[in-house]
Structure formats: C-alpha cells, structure tokens
C-alpha cells in the first residue's frame, strides 16, 4: 500500500517516472523494515507468538490511518501515457505496464530464489526461519539475519506496491485485500519453491478471471477466500505438496 502511494506521490510532486520509483523505494523500505525489526520486533521476540502478531497489527493500523490522514480515502491512480500504452503481438493487444510488471515480478522471483538457495545470507535466513536456536548454534548471526530478512521482506512488499500502482487504482485499504491474496497463493502453492509460488499465483489469477464469468463481478474478491477454504479442507498440504506426496507414494 505504502509502496503504491509513494510511487504516486513521487510522480505527482517530483514528476519522477513511476518506473524509477523502486530505486528509491526499495532501499528506503529496506531501512524501514530493518529499523522496525531493531526497534520493535526484537523486543517481543521472546514473548508468546500472538504478541508479535498484535504488534505488527498495530504498526499496520498506524500506517494505514496515517495514509488516510495524509492522502484521504479517495482512490488514486497514476495517469501518464506509459500506463495506457499497448503493443500488439500475435494479433492481440497487450498493455505495456502489464507486461512490464509480469517480467519484473518474474525476475524478482528468480532472483529471490537464487538468493535464498545459493548465497550464505539466503541460507542463513532460511535456517533462522526454521529454528532460531539451532541456527545460532551453528554460528549464524541470528540478530543480523533477522534484521536483514525483515528489511528484505518490507522492501519487496514496497516494490510490489510500486508495481501494482501501475496497474490498479488504490486506497489506503488496498493492502488488506492483497495480503489475503498473497496468503492464499502461498497456501495454494507452498512456500518452498519458486514453482509453487508461480503456480499458486497463476491458479488464483485464472480462478478470479474466469470466476467473474459465472458470478457478479462485485464478488470477485470472494474467490480468493473460497479457494483458500477449499484448499485447506481438500488439500491441506497445498497443491505442490499434494503432487509431491502423490509422486512419492
């Protein structure tokens, strides 16, 4: 949400091209996320898990209501020729920003996958996520890793918001729906592989696009939730997990 707003804000006040906004947003959000971990998250690490959940809920409340105060609840769009441009290929018209977002998202996914599996830092992050104490035992600087992981997460979310601002209009409440959708994708595909995430995202996107043919468009946001419930009941391991289990068994 904030990523989208800052892209919009940089564009309207400084006439910064929306495609360049991530150059500012990603490092800035990384620092914000890192700082958030340092100042707030760290303090509640030892407590019951719901405490850190509630704290981040508080952070979200503050950010969202700040956005309402600063930018009001009106929905915003970025308007410029680039957003409306199209290219034709294979006899079809494609919107340029959509292609751009698709390519960028794909690149980020691949980069993230390589980072998490091939670099020391990436592996340290995964180890810390699995078992903080064990990671510390094998010599991972858990404190530093958590800060970086948090910063990275926030930076990517900001990047995502910035990309989305090219496609959709947004309000301060924009993020809630999206966090639900991302969650649905993760449940669908599983988090352990790039294939899973891509697979989950494609399934949800197709379900939403085609679902609208059979039901009122105002119910579109319901689809992600229905998919979530169905998957949880029918395939508790997610689609990729189920396929894997089938292959093994």
């Amino acid at each position, binding site marked *: 949400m904030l990523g989208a707003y800052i892209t919009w804000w940089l564009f309207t006040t400084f006439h910064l091209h929306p495609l360049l906004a991530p150059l500012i947003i990603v490092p800035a959000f990384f620092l914000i996320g890192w700082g958030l971990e340092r100042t707030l998250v760290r303090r509640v690490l030892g407590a019951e898990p719901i405490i850190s959940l509630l704290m981040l809920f508080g952070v979200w409340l503050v950010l969202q209501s700040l956005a309402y105060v600063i930018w009001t609840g009106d929905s915003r769009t970025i308007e410029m020729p680039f957003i409306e441009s199209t290219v034709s290929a294979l006899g079809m018209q494609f919107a340029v920003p959509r292609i751009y977002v698709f390519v960028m998202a794909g690149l980020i996914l691949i980069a993230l996958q390589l980072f998490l599996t091939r670099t020391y830092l990436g592996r340290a992050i995964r180890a810390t996520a699995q078992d903080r104490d064990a990671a510390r035992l094998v010599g991972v600087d858990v404190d530093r890793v958590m800060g970086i992981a948090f910063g990275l997460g926030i930076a990517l979310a900001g990047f995502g918001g910035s990309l989305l601002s090219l496609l959709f209009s947004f309000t301060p409440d924009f993020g*809630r729906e999206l966090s639900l959708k991302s*969650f649905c994708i993760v449940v669908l595909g599983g988090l352990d592989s790039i294939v899973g995430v891509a697979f989950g995202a494609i399934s949800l996107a197709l379900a939403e696009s085609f679902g609208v043919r059979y039901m009122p468009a105002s119910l579109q946001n319901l689809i992600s*939730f229905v998919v979530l419930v169905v998957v949880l009941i029918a395939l508790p391991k997610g689609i990729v997990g189920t396929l894997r289990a089938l292959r093994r068994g």
Partner: protein
Amino acid sequence: MDRGRTIFVAVLLVAAIVAPFVFAERAEFVIDSLFLIFLYGAMATAWNVLGGFAGQVSFGHAAFLGIGAYTTAILQPLGVSLWIAVPVGALLAGLYSLVIGIPAFRLRGPYFSIATIGIGEATRLIALNWTSLTGGASGLTLSAAPPIVAQYFAALALCVGAVALAAWIRSSRFGFALAAIRQDPDAAETLGVATTVAKTQALFISACILGIAGSVYALHYLFVSPGSVFGFGTSIGFVIMPIIGGLGTVSGPLIGAVLYSFVRDQLAVSLPNNGDLLVFGVLLIAIVVYEPRGILGIVDRLRRARRRRAPAAGEAA
C-alpha cells in the same frame, strides 16, 4: 475472589441497576453512554474468550455480530417475537462459527489470523450482494425500538452474563485447556488437550455472545448495513478493547470497552479521517512492547511498587 473485590463488583452492579432510574428522565446521554459501554464490554469479552484465553487472534469477528444483527433486523419487521429472533440470531452466529472453524483451525497463529480477515471480508461481501435477503448496501431498517431502559437492561444483562461466563471459563478445566493452547499448542496436544475441539468450542461461545450483541445493536440503532456491522473496523474494535484492558483476563475487556467507547467518541469529533485508529494503533504498539498485560498490567505494577515502598517506609519510621 477476595472480599474487597466482591464488594467492589456488587457496588458496581447495584450502581448499574439503579443508574437508569436516576438518569432516565434528565440525562439520556448518560444512559446511552453506559448502554454502549455494556454492549462493547460484551463484545470485547466475547472476542477475548477466543483471542485472549486461547490466543487465537481473529480479525473477522464482525461476521458474528453482523449475523445476529441481520437476523433480528430481518425477523423483527415480520412480527416475530424478539424472544425468538434474538436466540435464533445467536444460534445462527454459532452455527456459522462452526462452519468457519473447520477450515480456519487447520491454520495456526498468524496464518489463522490472516484467514479470519478473509472470513470477515467474505461475509461482508455476501451480505452486500445477497440483496433479496439483506437489502444490499442500503441495509435494513427495523420497525420500532424497545424503550431505552429495556435496551439498557438487555445490554447490562448481556454484559454481566458474558463476563460471568468468561470468569467461569477461566477457572474451569476448559479454560486451562485454552490457556495451554495459547502457551504452546503442541505441548497442549501432547498433554491430551483436544486442541481443535477446544478452540472450536471457544469460537462457538464467542460467536453466540456476539450474535446476541448484534441483535441488541440492531434494536438500538434500528438500522443495519454491511459496512457497519460486518465492517472491518468493527472487527478491529473487538481486537483493540481487550488488548487495552488486559488480554486474556476477565475484567480487562470491560476496562478496554470503557476506554475505547469514551476515547472513540472524543476522537471521532476532533480527528476525522480514521484519526482514532491512528491513536489506537500507537496505543496498541506501546502496550504490546511495554506492558502486554494492558491496563491491568500497569495497575498490577503500581500496586507492587507501592507494596514494596510500604515496608521501606515502615522501617524508616
């Protein structure tokens, strides 16, 4: 409960019962404020049974309030007695909670919480689009309100009932099971707590209380719409109140309700545009970081500090 506390509770209760007869004619405002406090108190207590006792933070509890409110709003103009409509609303909310609990409790911790956002949102969308039943975005209007004193006692009874139930749960075997789930679900399961069953029961109780609260809400405002009773802001309120007062305690949600309804009224005037949520958000972070036990935790600290000082002063003298 020690004797001092029993007397304190009794005095509060008598004051609450006498209040409408003292104020009814002169200051309807006081009655109205107290009514809201009791209603919010009941709602916060209901949320706390699942969120505080069992540690399952739900951001979608408005769904149950909405179902209760809509049941009464649909049945009352048809001439159905409130003695039937209100329990039906509670029961429907409870049944809905069972339907939801089955998939949702496959998820844990933060994942459960994210899913509840979806539950709340999905329920609101259904209410918004099922126009033939709910009137869609324009909402439903009820025919006539019961007298304010009757509403007042309904809210008071609901609140007292909810708090009494919460107090009983907390000291029962069931309550211990919930506390075990909150602290460590795996350990609880190992010790023989049927965690999913216990969580579903807590959700059911919570939903039924909210269903009744929804009816009281509808009868007070005589109008329900998806944006109000099913709104995400409503769910947020349920989360904020118990945390301010003291998560997982019996009196905490009540204290939170008093503060919440008061502060919100004040802020709604002075800080439009969701300014109240900004304040509550900051408050929430501060509480979670510095005193996760909320106001009750602060009171406890002060009391301990005084006790520590008292003997020291005695020695000096």
